[in-house]
């Protein structure tokens, strides 16, 4: 079976800086795949490149058997890829419900009321705050809102950039639990970037390690957790 997302030999530049130097990654349908790596490795760049902003200068990105390398961001998103970019980026002056409405742009056919119901089931606190403006939510609530907003369009593939950033450990675990739940109940494929390597690798089916714009390691979550290099670089003192 061909993978849902296939990134091959992708190179991305910011001006003269080469942020991705030939990246190959595959995500199969129904999988949770994690990408870890140190700061500046190019993780966010990879997620953004998949969405065509910036576009890859070389290589190919295929989604659902389609070459999307040269597509514009809004067209890519309409194919069923939802992204929560780095740093939450909710709309601060708009209410929780309005933020969720913006999630429906990519897929106007999705049942909005049903999507909202599902979002409030996953994150009950959002239901209580539905008429509050996004900017007044706590950091964790904003993160939940960003995820819920991405889910409204019922994407086939969900790209998450550091969903546990800045969250208390308990809340981070809660977010990971919700991700597993989304993956299992609706079969949404998830590709996530994380600094919280221990939890992310425990959650995922497979994982990649990115360093200096290149994939240096790949394997199942368990394999990577066992890997001495990973332990030394990313798990030093975390969790275990």
């Amino acid at each position: 079976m061909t993978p849902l997302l296939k990134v091959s030999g992708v190179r991305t530049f910011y001006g003269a800086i080469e942020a991705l130097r030939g990246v190959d990654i595959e995500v199969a349908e129904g999988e949770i795949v994690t990408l870890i790596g140190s700061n500046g490795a190019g993780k966010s760049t990879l997620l953004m490149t998949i969405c065509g902003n910036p576009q890859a200068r070389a290589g190919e990105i295929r989604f659902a058997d389609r070459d999307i390398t040269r597509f514009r961001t809004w067209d890519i998103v309409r194919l069923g890829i939802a992204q929560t970019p780095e740093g939450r980026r909710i709309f601060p002056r708009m209410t929780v419900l309005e933020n969720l409405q913006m999630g429906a742009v990519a897929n106007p056919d999705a049942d909005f009321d049903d999507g909202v119901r599902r979002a409030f089931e996953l994150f009950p606190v959002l239901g209580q705050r539905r008429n509050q403006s996004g900017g007044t939510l706590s950091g964790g609530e904003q993160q939940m809102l960003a995820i819920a907003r991405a889910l409204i369009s019922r994407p086939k593939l969900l790209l998450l950039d550091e969903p546990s950033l800045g969250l208390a450990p308990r809340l981070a675990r809660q977010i990971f639990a919700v991700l597993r739940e989304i993956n299992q109940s609706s079969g949404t494929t998830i590709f996530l970037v994380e600094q919280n390597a221990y939890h992310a690798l425990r959650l995922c089916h497979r994982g990649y390690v990115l360093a200096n714009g290149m994939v240096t390691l790949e394997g199942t979550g368990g394999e990577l957790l066992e890997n001495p290099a990973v332990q030394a670089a990313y798990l030093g003192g975390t969790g275990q």
Partner: protein
Amino acid sequence: MRPPFASPLLRDAVLVAGIAGVLAFPFVGLLLTTQGTAPTLSARFPEFAGAVVLIFFGRLGISAARRGHILFPIVLGVVMATVGAFSLLFETTGMAADSAAPWHAFVPGTFLATVASAGGVAIAVVAGRNHLLRDSVPVARKPLPMKQLLLWTGVALAGVAIVLPLLPAVDRRLIDVATLVLTYVMLGWGLNIVVGLAGLLDLGYVAFYAVGAYSYALLSVTFGWSFWVCLPLAGALAALFGILLGFPVLRLRGDYLAIVTLGFGEMIRIILLNWYDFTNGPDGISNIGRPSFFGFQFAAKPAEGTESFHTLFGIAYDPVHRLIFLYYLILALALLTNAFTLRIRRLPVGRAWEALREDEIACRSLGVNPRNTKLSAFAIGAMFAGFAGSFFATRQGFVSPESFTFIESAILVAIVVLGGMGSQIGVAVAAIILVGLPEYFRELQEYRMLAFGMGMVLIMLWRPGGLLTHREPTIRTRSQPASA
């Protein structure tokens, strides 16, 4: 426990009286009279001093009552009410003529006396009520529901606007000023779509106003088409210009966009000025068709074989009919703009405008096409400017490049920003303050612009976010999700 009577109260009252003094000085303290042909300024010291003293005591009483003092505000209120009432009595019975009564010096004028007595009673009542409620359990007071408040303010403003020309006290001059204000309200609402909702700082909005005015003028003069045919055409042409100008510049952000739009605004004006064959240059275009009441002219002597407005209704000819008709025309156009904005905010495209203003990257990642979304805001804003422009042309019967200078754009941006960036009522109030009031100070000539500037500074100081910062959500509470 009663808080001890403290000097913050005094300081507060002095401060407020001071501010009132600064404000009241030009309005109350100076009297402009015309003797012969030369206007002269004379001081009205008693009125001015009375107003300031009254505000000092009133503020003292109000804040004391608010802080839970009881005896002091009651006494103060009663004294104020008594002085005010006596003064009123003397004033109205003519006993004040000999000016012997000492209190007359403190509360001059029937108006101040009325305020003093009513305010005194109010302060005493509030303090008394505090006394009665002192031992009862405090109940959390519900905050005023902003939505209701805004709704009723809007309805009230619209109501006043609708009946205004029919009021007996209203003269030609007021209708003229009101028409001018409404033109700015409409332009402000149009620009609000671009600046307030979509967050695109457009300093050249007047260009589209000019395009609308000239489109109407040229179509009307060249083809003799009627207002109702030219209006939509002028709007469409202005929208087209919005797209043409917007296309290259909308990838710019913030300051850069502002500068480039400013340049475009000036370019349009300079083209109008120099393209003599087409626009008649600085001489402008005159004899533009005046609006008709659905085909019936406002003319004293209708052309052979046609009826005019007054013969249609069998009333005497009066030039004010046309003024009133123009007033209602711009009112209808403005209300149309408002209704359109209120509606489109609830539609996906309007929501995308607001979202784009908040965070463009998030919008992209959610599937919004920023270029098209911005262009649509630009074009729709331009269209309303085009409508307003054709109204301007038909009202004046004459257009020239002079009417479309940068200052017009600047005033409009000021109206939108001071109104509160996106608040419809805020824009209307700001237009009244910034355009309507200065019209009444025409006599002050250059100082009028000073008043304009001072108004802006004061609004910025007191309400840095604009007059009305409340943003009404476009979607309201849904029923609680049925969760098990």
